[in-house]
């Protein structure tokens, strides 16, 4: 344990911050488990949560989910694929979408917000929540929604969302008001600073040059290298990603500070999103799309290789054989191969790449859903308890369900004895 105490010091950069903090003991434990590669205890705990999800018979099924998600966050400090948190959140929020009991349950709303923050477009989710009436009485929804708008520089919208929340009478109202005031304060400060900036820019402009490019605040100026005189832009992240609150607030989508005339550019994102959140009929929640390491396929290059052979057949010319014999050491032995007798000839090391799945966008899912509704009945139906098998993050088989129930019964029998 002594060596584990220092463990978290070494892994600090791999620990994702949590809004409500981490318990140090859980963190120690999680890091210890990972250090020792000991997964059996983790797996057992996970399995027990999974079976609890399926066997729970009380009147607060959300509680199991909340505990499971909390445990997952504490146990996998790095987050990432292994924790399966995004899937877990998605399953949890979907499960109770139609449950009126949980619509304004703060735990449920917080799960939704967390889910939304993991999505590539949280706005869709918030709009969906509003349309479904999930969390419309909770201040937390409006705060998260407004923050998202603020992040994108849509300050008007951010403000109107707060107003909307107040109109709906979201609770706790003091909190909502406090955040609203804070937003207004930030907006004011930013306007002040941008005005002074503009003035300064104006002065700089008259000086002549150099003001169009933002300056690096730290390190030296970027220099052009080689013959080409192109200099890399300083801000290489897309505008929506970079986000700072407070004094350095920059208006990402606003007109360039030194240009006096705004020219409409159709390629740019529209500056303002619809003023009033539209009330649409959402039939299915959008999917979380913010998966890690998923690259969208793109065309690599436009260049086509010309066909060289005159006959029109593109035959790859084999490289010429070397004119010498490669030297082989005398005591050389071929490396030992694991025996495989079934058919070593067909042991293909590289398998063919599978075609990419068509990405499911929220919109697409919606249209599919409505299509199904139009068609009426599905063409096939599974005659087994699918919702039980696929309730949590991992799948169960019939026997596992039954064995869990058997185990539970055995336990209660023992307790009563």
């Amino acid at each position, binding site marked *: 344990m002594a060596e584990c105490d220092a463990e978290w010091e070494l892994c600090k950069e791999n620990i994702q911050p949590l809004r409500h903090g981490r318990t140090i003991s859980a963190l120690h434990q999680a890091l210890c488990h990972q250090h020792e590669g000991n997964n059996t205890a983790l797996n057992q705990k996970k399995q027990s949560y999974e079976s609890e999800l399926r066997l729970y018979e009380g009147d607060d099924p959300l509680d199991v989910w909340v505990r499971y998600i909390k445990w997952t966050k504490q146990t996998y400090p790095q987050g990432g694929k292994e924790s399966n948190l995004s899937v877990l959140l998605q399953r949890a929020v979907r499960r109770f979408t139609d449950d009126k009991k949980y619509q304004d349950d703060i735990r449920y709303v917080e799960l939704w917000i967390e889910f939304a923050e993991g999505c590539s477009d949280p706005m869709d989710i918030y709009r969906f929540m509003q349309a479904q009436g999930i969390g419309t009485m909770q201040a937390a929804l409006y705060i998260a929604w407004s923050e998202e708008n603020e992040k994108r520089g849509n300050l008007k919208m951010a403000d109107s969302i707060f107003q909307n929340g107040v109109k709906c009478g979201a609770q706790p109202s003091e909190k909502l008001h406090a955040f609203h005031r804070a937003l207004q304060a930030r907006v004011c400060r930013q306007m002040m600073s941008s005005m002074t900036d503009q003035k300064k820019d104006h002065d700089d402009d008259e000086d002549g040059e150099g003001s169009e490019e933002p300056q690096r605040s730290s390190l030296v100026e970027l220099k052009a290298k080689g013959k080409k005189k192109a200099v890399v832009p300083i801000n290489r992240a897309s505008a929506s990603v970079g986000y700072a609150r407070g004094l350095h607030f920059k208006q990402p989508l606003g007109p360039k500070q030194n240009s006096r005339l705004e020219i409409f550019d159709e390629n740019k994102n529209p500056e303002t999103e619809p003023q009033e959140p539209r009330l649409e009929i959402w039939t299915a929640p959008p999917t979380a799309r913010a998966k890690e390491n998923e690259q969208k396929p793109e065309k690599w290059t436009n260049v086509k290789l010309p066909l060289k052979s005159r006959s029109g057949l593109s035959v790859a010319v084999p490289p010429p054989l070397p004119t010498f014999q490669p030297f082989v050491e005398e005591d050389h032995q071929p490396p030992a191969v694991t025996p*495989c007798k079934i058919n070593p000839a067909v042991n293909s090391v590289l398998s063919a790449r599978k075609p990419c799945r068509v990405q499911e966008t929220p919109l697409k899912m919606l249209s599919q859903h409505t299509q199904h509704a139009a068609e009426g009945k599905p063409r096939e139906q599974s*005659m087994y308890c699918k919702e039980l098998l696929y309730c949590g993050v991992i799948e169960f088989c019939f026997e596992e369900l039954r064995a869990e129930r058997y185990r539970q019964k055995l336990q209660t029998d023992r307790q009563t004895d």
Partner: protein
Amino acid sequence: MSLFGTNTGFGAGTTGVFGSATTDSHNPMKDVEVTSPPDDSISCLAFSPPTMNGNFLIGGSWANDVRCWEVQDNGQTVPKAQQMHTGPVLDVCWSDDGSKVYTASCDKTAKMWDLNTNQATQIAQHDGPIRTIHWITAPNYSCAMTGSWDKTLKFWDTRSPNPMMSLQMPERCYCADVVYPMAVVATAERGLIVYQLENQPSEFRRIDSPLKHQHRCVAIFKDKQNKPTGFALGSIEGRVAIHYISPPNPAKDNFTFKCHRSNGTNTATPQDIYAVNAISFHPVHGTLATVGSDGRFSFWDKDARTKLKTSEQLDQPITACCFNNTGNIFAYASSYDWSKGHEYYNPQKKNYIFLRNATEELKPRNKKW
């Protein structure tokens, strides 16, 4: 061999052909009922190997017991012995000489049951329930292979408390089959691993699942030289994949087919899809039988890609099936498979094991004669 306890009370004369007197649908195929069936769902069935004289049937159940019956030539079944585990029994297999039976259980242990002495000894221990057990006889070793929900595959020489080998799997073991020198394990999350067993067990290849839904049962088939060449994999959604390990033309030789579904020709109602609970290959003809949650069994010819027969619907799912070594008896077990959760479980419902003459019905149809 010792008999069942006297309290089970049944004479040898209670078996036999029931004729048309039965009107309920528990035995619509009018097959021979095995006497004294287990008191809970039957999870697995296995017939004795060819080295034994006569036919002995082993069945494991969720009532924690393993039973052994002798099946006489006239179709009568005589209960012979039984053993208990402290948890439900999930799989059974025979040793090559037929003197021992190996049993795997939810109590995380596997046992070796010596039929001569009627003694059972523990031979394996896992961290989770053991789902599968198979006996492997290689020229240089013999062992029991156990696949568990603790995501390991272990090999036991039956004398040592420690496994001679333990292989980690990516997921929980759901089903497995062994025909020396090949073993196939299908796991949760649609994992599929082929092992080779010569010299010592080792992973041979992982295969992308040919199926889209959860794996449920797997059975290895042999080629004309009696060597294992591929496997049939059944899924939870009414489909079986025939997969060759190294086919000359993978795109053509490997295929899947639908089974255990309600009639899909009627477009007004949706097609009902049931799980494929077990697959078994006929030892002589190489044709196969599938049994499903819909309470039907079907016989198929994978080479001609045709269905040979589908049974009438039983009033319960069919949970297990097997052929005897000469291929003239097809045994299948009718009991609840938990496919609809515990609400649909009726402990009062009787479980059955039926025996059917399999000589004619499983002959490939397109043979020239």
